[in-house]
């Protein structure tokens, strides 16, 4: 049984604005599914519907086997939720907040206390457990929010932009915790506008734009849809043509760009060493090389014509492949 099954989910607001337009997806038990899209794409509206906070105006969905409209209380018992704005009461202490959450999930008092201690230690907040949340940093609040969502060991965990606005260290802490939870069997549905987050964490990614899913698959599958990785090799002047001939035996040689030899590699990073070896055996000195792989942004651009994040947001100037992730490799 799928942990989340969504069929033609729709949500229209007053004035006829449709934030979600027929979203359909399935998330298997134990999977991490990332919903990737820019602000206003419909990610949060979808999560609010799946967590019973908002009623759909069309379609249906089941979470942990329960219909989100007809069996909303059962859905709430099965899920953990950490929403976009970590809504924490600044007057409560971290321990009180988790205890409150545990009580709302009907944990007996002694168990609630033990669970609070365990979760605070797990997210590295035991030292601040009795401090008021108002004194916590943004990263600490997110970790506390995550801990409070785990208090009843939910089958399905919804994380709405769990690392937005966090520094890299706090972001990594959250990622590590999400991975650990997933290893323990929790299904995770997360929304994000960060490509790296989806790429690093998700088993499968759904790309949403203007309320519709425009692409879905594993990060590898999605990236494969827009191109293969290629190697950019800088070599000594006068050797470019000979180098192209050598690397052409191992992959498809692309037209040179800015004096660089380019070769498309089916096997990605695994093929870097054979290429270097072949050039070395041919007596061609390699000055530097970089493996360039398609990114989820390339996928997003290919599907929507727009970049997902950063200053490049807006119409894509050059289509797929304009902004690519570069992985320097030792020559």
């Amino acid at each position, binding site marked *: 049984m799928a942990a989340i099954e969504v069929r033609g989910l729709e949500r229209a607001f007053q004035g006829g604005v449709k934030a979600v337009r027929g979203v359909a997806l399935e998330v298997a038990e134990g999977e991490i599914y990332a919903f990737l899209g820019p602000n206003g794409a419909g990610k949060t509206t979808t999560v609010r519907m799946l967590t019973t906070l908002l009623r759909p105006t069309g379609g249906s969905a089941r979470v942990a086997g329960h219909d989100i409209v007809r069996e909303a209380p059962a859905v709430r018992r099965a899920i953990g939720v950490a*929403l976009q*704005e970590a*809504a924490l009461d600044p007057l409560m202490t971290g321990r009180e907040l988790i205890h409150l959450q545990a*009580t*709302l999930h009907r944990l007996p008092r002694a168990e609630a206390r033990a669970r609070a201690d365990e979760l605070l230690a797990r997210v590295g907040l035991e030292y601040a457990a009795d401090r008021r949340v108002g004194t916590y940093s943004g990263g600490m609040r997110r970790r506390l929010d995550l801990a409070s969502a785990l208090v009843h060991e939910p089958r399905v965990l919804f994380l709405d932009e769990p690392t937005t606005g966090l520094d890299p260290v706090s972001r990594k802490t959250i990622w590590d915790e999400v991975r650990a939870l997933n290893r323990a069997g929790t299904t995770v549905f997360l929304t994000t506008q960060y490509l790296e987050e989806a790429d690093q964490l998700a088993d499968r990614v759904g790309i949403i734009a203007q309320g519709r899913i425009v692409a879905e698959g594993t990060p590898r599958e999605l990236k494969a849809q827009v191109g293969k990785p290629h190697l950019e090799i800088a070599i000594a002047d006068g050797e470019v043509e000979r180098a192209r001939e050598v690397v052409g035996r191992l992959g498809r040689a692309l037209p040179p760009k800015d004096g660089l030899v380019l070769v498309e590699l089916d096997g990605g990073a695994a093929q870097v060493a054979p290429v270097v070896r072949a050039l070395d055996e041919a007596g061609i000195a390699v000055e530097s090389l970089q493996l360039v792989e398609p990114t989820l942004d390339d996928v997003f651009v290919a599907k929507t014509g727009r970049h997902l994040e950063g200053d490049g947001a807006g119409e894509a100037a050059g289509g797929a492949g304009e902004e690519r992730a570069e992985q320097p490799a030792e020559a």
Partner: protein
Amino acid sequence: MNPALAIHWPMVAVLVRRAMNEILRVPGAAIPGVLAPTIFFLGLTAVFGELTELGGFGTDDYQSFIIGVSLLQGSGFTGAATGVNLARDIEAGWFDRLLASPAPRPVILAGMVISAALRALIPAAVLLTVGFAIGVSWPGPFGLALAIVGVMGLATAAACWGCALALRFRTQSAAPLMQAGMFVLVLCTTSYAPREHLQGWLHTVATINPVTQVLEMVRQGFLGTVTWHETWPGLLTIAALVAVLAAFALRGMRRMAD
């Protein structure tokens, strides 16, 4: 205790405790709810202290006559402030946390309004202390208990009113409406003079205003004798106000998902 409430009492208790932080952890947070009714009480006692010479007040001490309305003012303000707090929680996203939890909606509402009833005891305690210090008659244990029931009951109704408005408008900008509603309800009663001294529209409004029944229940101990005749309409009014306004608040909570 209602069996459903008994089962969910630990949930109600944590929500009450959390709401009580507003006054226990924010220095001076209780002052606005105390200050206004106390100033009204002292000011009006000083200005209209001789009014009882007109007769019909049931006492020669004007302060004993108006202590009841001051108690209900403090209660109404404190109760309505629960709506302001809820609007803030909705704006901040905290309320989503409660709605996404398995806690039944009536339990969430109960947590908020019970805390209001408890918080209303603070202005009541200050007013009674000041009142007794300036000569308010001792109402007797039964009269005092009825006054407290009235204070807590009206605070509960006011909290339901405030919550219903907060859930309708979902913004703290609705705060004046919450406070003004209670202000009008409490003042358009036999607040400062007995019914026979009221004229025109105020006489009519005070007669039909259900809070008049609550005020007269609260007031009776300070004026002398407590009777069932003066008590049951007040208790019935509180029960009816809480039932109707809680239904509105729960409807608002259900419509949050629309």
